[in-house]
Each structure stands twice: as structure tokens, then as C-alpha cells.
């Protein structure tokens, strides 16, 4: 590069109007990538921290060691020694699977019913339910607890699962999705002599597969991650779910961070796996509510 070249370049920069524009666009692009990279780093770092932490002994984690260690198997061993891991996993899986199945049956039936059989009275009920959507759980938590204790259901999975089965949000979601269900299919099935329930099971269900897939993910995650209600209801050690155990471990007088990290991995793994397996449907499912 000669002095001449530089002066030409400088001259071009000062004389043409395009150059500062291009320059600023370049700067803006760079800043954008820097900002997005920072955001991505911040978003991913706690996951990295969790995985790295599970390979380090507790004092190292407490002192901020952010590199992989060799303590993974000891942490896993301590975890299995302090917690009944299979039992904890069974509790969470049972609540999540049974809860999800029942929620989908009851709430999709209702969403279908509200959309397919319209009556003025039911429309009013539906509008009322939408209003109830904004009632926070905190407002019904206390009476629900008293109800469950009078029914003798404290410390049972029934008490954890049943209040969530009829979900206004999922009913609303299925009603919105049902608008896309072709009426001709229903008419054809009626001519073939199917009754309304058979139409729902043999025609509606298979056609709405992806709606169900998305709902399964939403409801399963909500059940798997649920915390406050199980915390209130499940009181003995052997009935506790994964989230309750993670929390209890960190509440210990001398918390073992290595074990806490392992338990966090256990709590996160199922949902992260589901997310990556069904990423497209998952995002669609979340969006289903605004469509």
C-alpha cells in the first residue's frame, strides 16, 4: 500500500456520500453481532456452569471454578446415596404423564365441544372462563389446600394432579385449533353412522395430531416443572418430585454444590431433550395461543 493509495481512499471517503453510510452500516452490523453473541453467551452460560459444576467437588464450585473437573462419578455416587433417585424420578414421571394424559383428554374434549356445538349459554360460560384465566393460582391455593386436607388427600399424587386437569388455557388452545378442523370430515363421518364421540376419537384426534403434540409438550413441561403446589401437598421424602428434591438439596445447612448440579441436570434433561427433539412443534405450540 502506497501513500498515494491511502490518499485516494481518504479522498473517496470524504468526497462520496456513500462511504460514511457504508461505514456506519458496517459498525452497526458488528455491534449487532457483538450484542447477539453476548446474549447467546449469557443464555447458555448457566447450562455450561451446570454441566461443569457436576464434574467438580463442592468447594471448587463455591469458589467459582468454571472448568471441567474429575469429580463427576463421586457426585453421582453421593447423589444416589443421599436421594432415592429412582423413586424421585418415578414420582415426577408419574405426575407428569398421568397429569398430561388426563389434562389432554378433558381439556381437548371441552375445547372441541365449545367450538363444534355452539350455544349462547355456553358462549357466555366460555367468556367467563377466559376472564378466570387471569386469576392467579395464589388466590385459590389456600382453599384448595384446605379442601385437600379435608378430603384426606394431603401427600397424595391425586391432590397434585387433579386440580390441573381442566386447564382453561388448554381448553382455549384446543378451541382455537378446532377452528381449522374441516366440517366436511365431520359431516362425512356422520353420514357413515359414527356417533359424536366416535367422530372425536376416530376422526378429530388423528387429524389434530400436531395440535396434540404441541399441547403434550406444554402440559408435560408445566407438570414436570411444577413447584409451589407439589411443595404444599407432598410432604414425605419418598413422595417428593425432582424439583422438590433439587430445592431441598440447596436448602441444606451445608449444601453440596456438586450434588445440587447433578440434581439440576436430572431436572433439566427431560425438558431440554423434548425441546430439541420437537423444537419446531414446541415453538408452534407456544405460538398456538396467539394465533
Amino acid at each position: 500500500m502506497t501513500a498515494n493509495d491511502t490518499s485516494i481512499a481518504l479522498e473517496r471517503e470524504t468526497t462520496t456520500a456513500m462511504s460514511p453510510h457504508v461505514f456506519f452500516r458496517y459498525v452497526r452490523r458488528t455491534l449487532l453481532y457483538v450484542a447477539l453473541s453476548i446474549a447467546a453467551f449469557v443464555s447458555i452460560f448457566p447450562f455450561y456452569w451446570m454441566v461443569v459444576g457436576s464434574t467438580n467437588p463442592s468447594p471448587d464450585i463455591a469458589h467459582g471454578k468454571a472448568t471441567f473437573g474429575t469429580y463427576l462419578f463421586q457426585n453421582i455416587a453421593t447423589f444416589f446415596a443421599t436421594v432415592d433417585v429412582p423413586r424421585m424420578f418415578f414420582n415426577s414421571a408419574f405426575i407428569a404423564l398421568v397429569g398430561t394424559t388426563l389434562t389432554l383428554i378433558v381439556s381437548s374434549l371441552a375445547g372441541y365441544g365449545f367450538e363444534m356445538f355452539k350455544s349462547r349459554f355456553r358462549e357466555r360460560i366460555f367468556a367467563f372462563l377466559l376472564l378466570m384465566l387471569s386469576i392467579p393460582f395464589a388466590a385459590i391455593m389456600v382453599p384448595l389446600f384446605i379442601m385437600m386436607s379435608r378430603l384426606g388427600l394431603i401427600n397424595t399424587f391425586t391432590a397434585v394432579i387433579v386440580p390441573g386437569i381442566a386447564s382453561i388455557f388448554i381448553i382455549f388452545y384446543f378451541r382455537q385449533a378446532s377452528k381449522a378442523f374441516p366440517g366436511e370430515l365431520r359431516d362425512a363421518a356422520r353420514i357413515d353412522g359414527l356417533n359424536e364421540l366416535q367422530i372425536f376419537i376416530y376422526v378429530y384426534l388423528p387429524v389434530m395430531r400436531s395440535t396434540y403434540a404441541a399441547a403434550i409438550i406444554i402440559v408435560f413441561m408445566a407438570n414436570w416443572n411444577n413447584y409451589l403446589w407439589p411443595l404444599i401437598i407432598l410432604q414425605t421424602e419418598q413422595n417428593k418430585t425432582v424439583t422438590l428434591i433439587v430445592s431441598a438439596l440447596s436448602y441444606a445447612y451445608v449444601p453440596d454444590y456438586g450434588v445440587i448440579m447433578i440434581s439440576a441436570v436430572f431436572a433439566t434433561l427431560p425438558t431440554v431433550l423434548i425441546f430439541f427433539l420437537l423444537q419446531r412443534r414446541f415453538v408452534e405450540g407456544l405460538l398456538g395461543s396467539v394465533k
Partner: protein
Amino acid sequence: MAARIVTREHITGWMFVAPALILLGIFMIFPIAWSLWMTAQTGRGLNFAFGGFANIQRLLGDTVFLRALGNTMVFLVVQVPIMITLALLFAVALNDTKLWGRSFFRTAIFLPCVTSLVAYAVLFKSMFSAEGVINTAITAIGFAPIPWLTDPFWAKVLIVLAITWRWTGYNMIFYLAALQNVDRSIYEAARIDGVPPWARFVYLTLPMLKPVILFTTVISTIGTLQLFDEPYNITQGGPADATLTLSYYIYNLTFKFMPSFGYSSTVSWVIVVLVGILTFIQFMVTRERQAK
């Protein structure tokens, strides 16, 4: 004949919605009515006595309640705008189809909302501990370590950081979806007319996203007013009740101290009333802007 078909259809309709309506009646409507009734009841445990407005009077003189209310409002006023702004900016940036690594950034920013609230809360607690990884990094750059868990101010900052980490990607997804439906030719026309990017954002993107922004703001408001998992697992409501929230206080009143169901129901109705008022304000603000 026609009338009979209509009646049959009517009955079938009720059969489809009946299981859900019965369950909602028992586990939602009935508890709501019950808790409203309990706000007028005093007494401990399951011994109730009619107290009229005694609980509401007690609220006004309860410094712990006022502190919990104040903390919750601080979280709401500080955190929701930060998160909504970040989510919007990320969504607009990631809506650019020419952006390199677009799906990677989108997945990365969305990933936090796959984690369970408890698991991420516990992770944040360990990251932000006195000698934890964050303070190690801060001292490495040459600053003094921050007392995240022991200072009332920084504990609040930590909760705000945590919630923002968990929910920004979730809100971003809603904006990304809404942006997909926006007609690109409007932007092209604006660009050709020489409208700068910031003006395109303020005068084109924001007005078009208004319904979604309203939706996410309402959802976030309801969520923040019910904040429990994070303060319970990161800061235990401390130090000195600096991160105690309304939901946390209800939990304490009901399950930690000698249960006072009437009073805790009263506190929970404060949340209901706040949700109502704030949702109404948010609807009014957007409607007013639309009228202009």
C-alpha cells in the same frame, strides 16, 4: 324434526364440556368463592370467626405485607419493561433473514425457558454466591466483589437478572411470530423513502406489534405478581425481607407460621385486584394510543 336434532346437538355439546366444567367448578370457581368469603374471616387454623373488614385493616398496618407489596411492585416496574424491550430488540434483530447464525441465536436465547424454575434458581444461587463464578469474574476485571445474596439492593438486582434470563426468550418468540405476519413491502417502501432504522422500529414495528406487546405485558404482569419460585430458591426472601414477594408472604402466612387462612386469602385478593387494575390500565393505554 329439526327441533329434535337441535336439542340432541345441544345435549351432545354439554357432554363434551361437562367433565371440564365440573372440574373447574370444584377446583377453580368454588375455591375462588371460598377464598373471597375467607377474606372476611379471622381466626387461626380451621377455626373461623366473622371479622368483617378486620383483615383489610390488618393489611394496612402490616409492615411485612407492605414490604412484600413494595418489593413485588419494584420487580414489576423494573423487570417487565427491561425484559419486553430486550425481547423486542432481539426479535427485530433475528427477524432479519440475512442475519448469519440466525437460528443458532434464536435457539440460544430461547433455551433458558426450557429449564425448570427451581433448577435455574439453584444454578443462579451458586453462580452468584459470595465467592462464586460471577464474583470471581468481577474481581478478575479489577472490581470489588458484589454482595449479591447479602445486600438488600443487590439481592433485588439478582432476582431481576434471574427472571430476565429465564423469560426474555419466551417473549421474543411471540414477537418473532407476530413479525412473520408483517408485510415486508412496507419496510421496503420505508427504506426506499430514506426512513432510518430507528424510525422504522418506532413508527412501523411498534404499532404493528402493539397487540402482542399488550398480550405479553399482561402475561408478564400476572407472572411477576405471583413471583415465588425464584425468591424462595435464590434468596429465601432475604436479606431482611428485601426479596419477599406477595406470593411468598401468602406461603409463609399459610404454611410456615401458625396458619391464618383468612388473612392469607386477603393478601391473595390483593394480587387479584392488582392484576385487574394493571390489566385494565394496560388495555386503556394501548386503546388510547390506537385512537390517535
